[in-house]
């Protein structure tokens, strides 16, 4: 696709949706600001997180092996997968051997990334999302609208109608009661499930542990009730030591939802030991590449792998706040989506994407691991623009030539000034007609009035001033 989806216009023109997005992201912004303000060492924590991630990513081979050794030592198993097909094959094979049919899943962007539910359902498995937002979206056959708040765009009235339609319950608009309805359905699933699948927020190399943070308790149930737990994570989720969580846990909850800590932080390492009262009998960690190793080779691009999926860049992005989460081509939306989508999929698949930014830099300002997103956007733009010949490229070539010839630049300005049709009231231009109403001018005037060029340039006025 060469151009942005047409749906952008619809989203921007929908007042209810606009209000829902702006209010929800605004609330998350305020919560984040309130929660980082008391941290005297907040900026130092960001720097420490950046350096820890850099160190880990630059030594990923070492930490992957250390992690695997420690998972095995705890009685678990590590499975390396290149892509979603390999992940699904592993799960289907295991399910076949164990006679498993029902899977409960906690929230995981990594599994969204590889369309895991669809892949499993095609082979007759039932895979149920147990995070409330994700459960709602699964019923609607929609993708997450936001990395952290997947159903951010929906109102409780929409959820009430959905539950009535899909679950046959009475129309219920009170959120707490809606939660109870979902909980009743999901409890049965937890108890009957054969396999629990989770993501991972962190993988700790020195202890072989998977760390999952959440607020609803569904991840803890998904990973402890069924006999088999499979954690699926990108290889970039590694951190060297358990003590490093001292940095990351302080940043993640605050950046995501403004919580000092989320309600649950689970440390999962290996299956149930003798004498333990709960936990799975089998424990697997699936480590996914799916485009990540491509970035390792590039010192600049690998910074994208530092991301801890807090969603702060989405909340603070004035573009995300207008176009929402479903106008991005992939499940990763907002500023981080704008860089990792082309980096994972290749820049030419959605070449418009890195350009859909005003480069305001709000994302980089709040990123807890200090990913310089605007810098990456600029580099992606260069990759895209310089890879093809286009009218635009020729226009910028002419621009550069003109800017090196000041007299001709002044002359072209003068001509532009003379031939611009000026409104009679000496105001700004609202409409242009005929052959000049094309391209950038037309696009500008679609939304805003345009100032006509000055009759005398600064160059002219400066000469007069000196007289």
């Amino acid at each position, binding site marked *: 696709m060469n151009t942005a989806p047409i749906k*952008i*216009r619809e989203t*921007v023109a929908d007042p209810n949706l*606009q209000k829902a997005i*702006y209010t929800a992201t605004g609330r998350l912004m305020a919560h984040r600001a309130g929660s980082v303000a008391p941290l005297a060492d907040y900026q130092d924590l960001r720097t420490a997180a950046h350096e820890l991630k850099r160190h880990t990513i630059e030594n990923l081979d070492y930490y992957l092996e250390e992690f695997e050794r420690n998972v095995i030592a705890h009685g678990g198993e590590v499975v390396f997968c290149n892509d979603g097909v390999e992940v699904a094959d592993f799960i289907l094979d295991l399910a076949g051997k164990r006679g498993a049919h029902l899977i409960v899943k906690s929230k995981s962007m990594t599994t969204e990334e590889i369309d895991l539910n669809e892949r499993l359902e095609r082979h007759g498995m039932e895979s149920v999302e147990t995070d409330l937002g994700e459960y709602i979206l699964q019923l609607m056959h929609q993708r997450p609208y936001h990395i952290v708040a997947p159903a951010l765009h929906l109102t409780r009235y929409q959820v009430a109608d959905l539950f009535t339609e899909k679950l046959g319950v009475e129309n219920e608009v009170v959120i707490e009661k809606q939660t109870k309805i979902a909980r009743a359905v999901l409890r049965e699933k937890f108890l009957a499930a054969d396999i629990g699948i989770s993501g991972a927020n962190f993988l700790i190399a020195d202890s072989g542990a998977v760390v999952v943070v959440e607020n609803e308790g569904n991840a803890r149930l998904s990973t402890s009730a069924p006999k088999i737990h499979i954690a699926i994570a990108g290889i970039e989720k590694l951190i060297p030591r358990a003590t490093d969580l001292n940095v990351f846990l302080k940043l993640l909850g605050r950046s995501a939802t403004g919580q000092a800590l989320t309600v649950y932080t689970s440390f999962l390492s290996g299956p149930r030991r003798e004498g333990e009262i709960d936990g799975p009998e089998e424990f697997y960690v699936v480590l996914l590449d799916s485009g990540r190793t491509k970035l390792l080779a590039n010192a600049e691009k690998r910074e994208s792998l530092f991301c801890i999926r807090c969603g702060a860049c989405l909340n603070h992005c*004035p*573009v995300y706040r*207008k176009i929402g989460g479903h106008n991005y081509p992939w499940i990763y939306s907002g500023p981080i989506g704008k860089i990792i989508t082309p980096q994972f999929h290749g820049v030419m698949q959605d070449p418009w994407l890195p*350009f*859909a*930014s*005003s*480069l*305001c*830099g*709000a994302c980089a*300002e709040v990123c807890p691991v200090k990913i310089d997103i605007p*810098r990456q956007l*600029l580099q*992606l*733009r*260069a*990759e895209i*623009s*310089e890879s093809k010949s286009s009218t*635009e490229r020729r226009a*910028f*070539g002419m*621009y*550069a*030539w*003109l*800017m*090196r010839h*000041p007299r001709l*630049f002044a002359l072209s*300005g003068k001509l*532009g000034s003379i031939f611009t049709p000026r409104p009679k009231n000496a*105001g*700004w231009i*609202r409409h242009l007609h005929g052959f000049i109403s094309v*391209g*950038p001018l037309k*696009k*500008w005037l*679609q*939304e*805003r*009035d*345009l*100032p006509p*060029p*000055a009759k*005398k*340039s*600064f*160059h002219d*006025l*400066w000469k007069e*001033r000196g007289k």
Partner: protein
Amino acid sequence: MPSGRVSLFVTCIVDQVFPKVGLAMADVLERAGYQLDFPPAQTCCGQPAFNSGYRESSREVARHFLDVFRDSEYIVVPSGSCTAMISHHYDDIFENDPDMRKRASEIGARVYEFSQFLTEVAKVDDVGARYDATVTYHDSCHALRELKIKDGPRRLLANVKGLTLLEMEAAQECCGFGGTFSVKFPEISGAMARTKMDSIVKTGASTVVSIDSSCLMQLEGAIRRAGLPIRTMHLAEVLASR
């Protein structure tokens, strides 16, 4: 009394569309005791090409800029965005050209955004201006986030006689201009401008002030389209008023 020689880089947009902003800047700097110089061969900083991904074109324009201003003591610019292009991003575009990179960093260190020059070099917070109005200040993104300019323009405004400075809620939210973004994604850009405009309206201020004419072009374009009675002014124009 501060002294020194200041070269004006008025930027392409001020030269061609808002030349009075350049004159206002010149007046304020002269009153502050500086000798002014206007290198007439100046054109643009190269940012439009850089932001659109045409690095070679931006390098050509940057080389021209560095040549025109090679002997300047101070270079003062009525734009945070163009200043950041020169002082921050020339380093990126010349990353494979050590000689140009060195030259860019030497000249880049002498480039100041207008309010930054007043508060940090001239050490002036009160230019003796008078402007009777309620005013709200729009933080332009590159000034705020790349040059860390936040308090300076507010101090300068607060010291203007007759002026009441009101903070808007979304002062630090982008106006939606973003260079070619404004015409590549007009729907998004226009919606961002209107959100900013609503925030300005809520303050009850009669005038919105910025240190970037491009933001003001975007905001005034939206304000005029909406038919609102709000003025936009560059900081230099306010500070030149008496």
